[in-house]
């Protein structure tokens, strides 16, 4: 899960990473009150999980209350590359002498934490990596040793940070590591990390990715919400404990096992169709989970046909069939279903479906055949 800038900054602050004073706001009144409290000038920043907020007009400097009000009105509800702005972050404006870059990345290929520091911050770091790779100092940290002060010094000297802020930068890096390690982050990125004219070092932005699997140890992080990022179906699926990803097509997909569902999306696309979602009903799917999954899939109005692709291992095909029958009793779907059942108890499952004689449900025996059929029905 990715955090909004302000959620990331509040997390940083808990671990001693210096950030500017600020407050979140969801209405114009809240924004103005926050700005009054903080003291002008302030920056009004759109809170959305997409880059290029500044260019899109989502970050504005306000010298006084009138400007704060004008900007808050303009930015709340604004669409930034498909993301609607529901929240603002009002922050004390900063004077900037230099812009650096710092990050801790969970580097799965290297099986270690990658730490990067550069004096070329405030721009897209992937571009810097391409045009001037030597401008980024890198260190891999042994997970059993952790990030030590010498790592921080090595990075600071290699990156060529100004001599008078080496201490400030290394301290910030150590605190940022504390946040990364203690909160079990997959990414903690600061871009830009600023040096002010009076030589203070601060995180002016925050990009944080949480490890969803670690949230049971961090209930406060698990409770963080981003109303703009989750659509209706994803929210519904989450409440029902289903793994669902919204896609932009019109063929609803349900399968068991992440790999098989990904493969199903690919096979449907190869047959000329466009999947509406990824939905993994999980190993050992019980009838009730299947019924709930159908509910979620059909709540997307774009869905014109649904494909069930089940290979029964622990999951029993008769359970899946029973779940579908119940779903038909409760929801009475109007779109066609194609059901491919193979593996454990597949004959029993197909028999149940045949006996139930559900309207507009087609059974297929192969994955490829089922994909072709559902594409035909959705056309």
């Amino acid at each position, binding site marked *: 899960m990715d955090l909004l800038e302000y959620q990331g900054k509040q997390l940083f602050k808990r671990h001693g990473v210096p950030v500017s004073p600020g407050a979140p706001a969801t209405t114009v009144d809240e924004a103005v009150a926050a700005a009054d409290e903080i003291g002008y000038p302030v920056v009004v920043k759109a809170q959305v999980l997409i880059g290029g907020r500044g260019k899109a007009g989502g970050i504005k400097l306000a010298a006084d209350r009138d400007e704060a009000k004008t900007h808050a009105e303009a930015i709340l509800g604004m669409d930034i590359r498909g993301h609607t702005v529901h929240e603002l972050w009002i922050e004390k404006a900063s004077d900037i002498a230099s812009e650096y870059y710092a990050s801790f990345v*969970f580097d*799965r*290929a290297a*099986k*270690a*934490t990658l730490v990067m520091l550069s004096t070329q911050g405030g721009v897209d770091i*992937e571009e810097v990596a391409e045009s001037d790779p030597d401008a980024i100092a890198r260190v891999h940290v*042994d*997970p*059993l040793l952790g990030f030590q002060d010498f790592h921080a010094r090595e990075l600071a000297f290699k990156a060529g940070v100004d001599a008078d802020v080496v201490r400030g930068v290394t301290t910030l890096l150590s605190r940022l590591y504390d946040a990364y*390690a203690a909160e*079990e982050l*997959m990414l903690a990125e600061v871009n830009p990390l600023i040096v002010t004219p009076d030589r203070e070092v601060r995180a002016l932005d925050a990009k944080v990715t949480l*490890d*969803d*699997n*670690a949230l*049971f*140890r961090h209930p406060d992080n698990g409770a963080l919400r981003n109303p703009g990022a989750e659509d209706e179906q994803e929210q519904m699926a989450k409440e029902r404990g289903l*793994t669902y*990803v919204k*896609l932009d097509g019109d063929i609803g997909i349900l*399968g*068991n*096992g*992440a*790999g*098989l*569902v*990904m*493969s199903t*999306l*690919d*096979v449907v*696309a*190869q047959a000329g169709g466009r*999947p509406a979602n*990824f939905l*993994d009903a999980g*190993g050992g799917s019980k009838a009730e989970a299947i019924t709930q999954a159908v509910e979620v899939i059909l709540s997307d109005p774009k869905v014109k046909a649904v494909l069930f692709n089940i*290979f*029964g*291992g*622990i*999951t029993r095909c008769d359970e899946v069939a029973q779940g579908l029958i119940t779903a038909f009793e409760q929801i009475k779907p109007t779109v066609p279903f194609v059901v491919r059942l*193979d*593996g*454990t108890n597949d004959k029993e499952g197909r028999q149940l479906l045949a006996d139930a004689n559900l309207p507009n449900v087609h059974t297929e025996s*192969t*994955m*490829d055949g089922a994909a072709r059929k559902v594409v035909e029905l959705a056309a």
Partner: protein
Amino acid sequence: MSILVGEDTRLVVSGITGREGTFHAMNNKRYGTNVVAGVTPGKGGQDVEGVPVFNTFRDAVDETQANTAMIFVPPRFAADSILEAADAGIELVIAITEGIPAHDELRVYTQLKRDGRTRLIGPNCPGILSPGKANVGIIPAAFFKEGNVGVVSRSGTLTYQIGNELAQRGFGNSSIVGIGGDPVPGSSFIDVIELFEADPQTELIVMSGEIGGSAEEEAAEYIAANVSKPVVGYIAGVTAPPGKTMGHAGAIVSGSSGGAQAKIEALESRGVRVGRTPTQVAEIAVEVLGN
């Protein structure tokens, strides 16, 4: 022959007294796997259908000479259980548990590599099946028979799908190894392909990958340099959108890395044929090995 699990396997199951743990341990036992012990702290002295339960891995190893562990405990206890098994001298740990925090996995991976005695398969994997010999994990063994195709995969049901396509064309398997769908798997494609290359029973290797990370690209290089046996690949997630986790914690395209197309190209450019569907994988296997 087979790899990793077989007639020499002496299995201890962590979490054997849990509902899922009991179910699958007994399934494995009925298949013929030598299940010698279980571990559940506080339940030492009990038994599960005749399999003795111990408080610690060390007790289990001392009393039963267990050499392989299966981890079936919930995510918050799994890293500890893997480390305990390794500390007790277990050579092979197979972790079925899904949902282990990534930082835990990284610590475990690093510790096991440093120690050098224990191989970890998984976590978040279906286990290993060597048809006719032993089944450790949750792979539905009824669909697979003994044969000459070795399968290594990041996913469970997709492996069954591919294995079933192969079975329908008359192929059996030396071993089927699920390496798991997490960001830091204990063993990589390369680790398992190396074993298949050395296994006399295996004549063809099928590797089933998916989006996320670079393990498939690394395997492609390794195969070109070190593997004499034919390898057929499959990559799931060609149509997966970037930035979305597709079910498996490790299945995510991040920025410009981890995409399916790059993996397919890496494999094909090094002479590995890649099926575009599970069915095509089996068709290529037929072309390579004959019927």
